[in-house]
């Protein structure tokens, strides 16, 4: 970060020069919750030229989880004899009949874990309890869930199962681009998921849709460098695939992690909040590991659950509106009492917007004084 300032002034200079050449304002989309938080935390929106915008896409795993899948987790957590292990972010996401946190209040045994292997170990140490691991996330977290299933298999555990709602990024991005109403000029591709997927995974979006894609890291200067490249591509009318996070993301990604995923999971349709059911965008546990599938074990069936009335999370994560455009934002829906998932997850666009304030709207002190 010590050399951050010079790099930052270089990239903002390049971004400014490219933005001058834009014929129309350009909105880019980040599809990674970590990008969302990083952008808000460093006040990145306040550093963009007036005709360049950055919107949040379906990159926060909690935010894209369908209401019905949350209901399923609450249902599993409330089964007698079950210890439900999940990541902290899932705890407060409201389902139709309350959140996992509320279920815990009613007596359900819900534990927050940091590593999926902690859940496996807990199951091994507590043979009388049945541990259900509730897992969501993209290619970044799926290998850890797969590894937990393999470890449970190795230990021959009979008191461990997984309620997985993992998603695959590319089919969802394709679905998003197939929607002609989407006004997005380019994609700031996620740094973390790309470590697994590889930058080449995004090439079809460039080839098939003529859509600029740039893989970027999470430091402000890395994100700005990505946005500068996207702006240059739009200004010159030459969509490309670029990777400004080469030190971490390889073109081929991490084949070993993808192999672990493929060993345990197979492609399946998945229900995304706001995007609906997208074929091939989800992952089901393969038949040879079916004894670790909590839905089979406990005969859990996801029901269609309507999203809460007035909630515009779906439009927020598809770049159709900003959090502040939602009628519930900041009044009926706050991080203390969230209505939609984008307000619950610390990586949700609404929560970041609420917490850091719409940084674009903060007038500099010098100007505010006038």
């Amino acid at each position: 970060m010590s050399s951050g300032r010079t790099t930052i002034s270089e990239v903002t200079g390049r971004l400014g020069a490219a933005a001058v050449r834009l014929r129309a304002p350009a909105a880019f989309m980040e599809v990674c919750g970590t990008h969302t938080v990083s952008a808000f935390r460093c006040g990145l929106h306040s550093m963009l030229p007036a005709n360049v915008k950055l919107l949040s896409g379906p990159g926060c795993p909690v935010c894209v989880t369908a209401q019905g899948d949350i209901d399923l987790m609450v249902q599993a957590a409330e089964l007698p004899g079950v210890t439900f292990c999940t990541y902290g972010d899932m705890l407060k996401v409201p389902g139709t009949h309350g959140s996992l946190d509320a279920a815990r209040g009613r007596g359900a045994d819900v534990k927050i874990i940091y590593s999926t292997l902690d859940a496996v170990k807990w199951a091994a140490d507590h043979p009388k309890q049945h541990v259900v691991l509730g897992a969501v996330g993209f290619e970044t977290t799926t290998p850890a869930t797969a590894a937990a299933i393999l470890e449970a298999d190795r230990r021959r555990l009979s008191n461990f199962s997984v309620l997985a709602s993992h998603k695959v990024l590319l089919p969802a991005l394709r679905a998003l681009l197939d929607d002609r109403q989407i006004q997005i000029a380019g994609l700031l591709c996620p740094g973390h998921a790309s470590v697994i997927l590889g930058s080449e995974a995004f090439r079809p979006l460039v080839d098939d849709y003529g859509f600029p894609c740039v893989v970027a890291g999470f430091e402000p200067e890395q994100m700005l460098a990505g946005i500068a490249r996207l702006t240059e591509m739009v200004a010159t009318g030459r969509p490309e695939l670029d990777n400004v996070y080469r030190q971490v993301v390889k073109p081929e990604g991490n084949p070993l992690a993808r192999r672990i995923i493929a060993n345990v999971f197979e492609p399946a349709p998945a229900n995304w909040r706001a995007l609906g059911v997208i074929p091939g965008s989800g992952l089901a546990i393969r038949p040879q590991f079916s004894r670790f599938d909590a839905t089979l074990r406990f005969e859990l069936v996801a029901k269609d659950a309507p999203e809460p009335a007035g909630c515009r999370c779906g439009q927020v994560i598809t770049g159709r509106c900003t959090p502040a455009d939602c009628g519930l934002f900041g009044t009926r829906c706050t991080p203390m009492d969230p209505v939609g998932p984008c307000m619950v997850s610390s990586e949700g666009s609404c929560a970041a917007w609420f917490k850091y304030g719409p940084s674009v709207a903060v007038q500099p002190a010098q100007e505010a004084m006038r």
Partner: protein
Amino acid sequence: MKAFDHILMAHGGGGQLMDQLLNEVVRARVGNEILAQGMDSGILQTPAGRLAITLDGYVVTPPFFPGGDIGRLAISGTVNDLAVCGARPLGIALGLIMAEGLERSILERVMDSIAATAREANVKVVTGDTKVVGRGQCDGLYVTTAGIGEVPAGLILGHAEVRTGDKILINGFIADHGLAVMLAREMPHLTTPIRSDAAPLNGLIEQVLESHAKVRFMRDPTRAGISGLLADLARASRRRVVIEEECLPVRRETRHAAEMLGLDVMEVANEGKVVMVVADEDAGKALTAMRSHPLGKDAAIIGEVTDVTDGLCELHTTSGGRRVVQKPLGEQLPRIC
């Protein structure tokens, strides 16, 4: 009387067993002439001026963590609540609530720490209370401390004293306490260099006040981190407070741990830090005074009070962006990817 290894219900019963506990474990460590009078209250000499009184409960888990423990916290927290009001601590009241079955060695370690921290703060435990509750009714050991202190004549501190141009100072690295405890709680197997900053700050604060720097306001950024403190400061003083992120002292390892857990270092608790608002012309003097104390050697000026009256705290980020700093909402949750 028979030696004991564990706390029994009878140790809270007010009888001979309780006397044994108090003599062997408590008075042996924090005894002094006031406590020795054996009265139901500690009797203190009254100063001529104003008194400050404060109370705090300590329920931290785990009770021992890198850099501190519940005992050090209990003395530091109450001493600091007095000191940031400009008060010189006169005495501490100590309440212990123990669960039946608590190991004597744990209580002894905590009492050792209470005694050592009280010596460091140059304050006496002048009265106390001991209770034992049934197994499972409390998580091992809870500590309550109340403090009484003397406020020097003529010292007026508060949000109302804050003026345009005032500088904002902090005595060192932020977020160490919260992360040390969180890592000890959530990842006990991890070895980390992050240590709690829990410390009594009355010595450092006295040193700054003695430098005759015009201090307008002080507060210790505990549970809501410096975000909570600064957002409150801006709102209550009805001034825009501008903070330079680049000037905020944050240790590298603390920043990394916070990033790993998805936490904002500005929202993480501190137990040995004080934020001071000081008149512009005296900021250098106050900074020198802070830095000449061992608990302030990494002190920095982190921002200033502007004459914009919107009551917002604005952060100039290291990367050159600007954003609002808000008070945190509630408990922070670890992120999932």
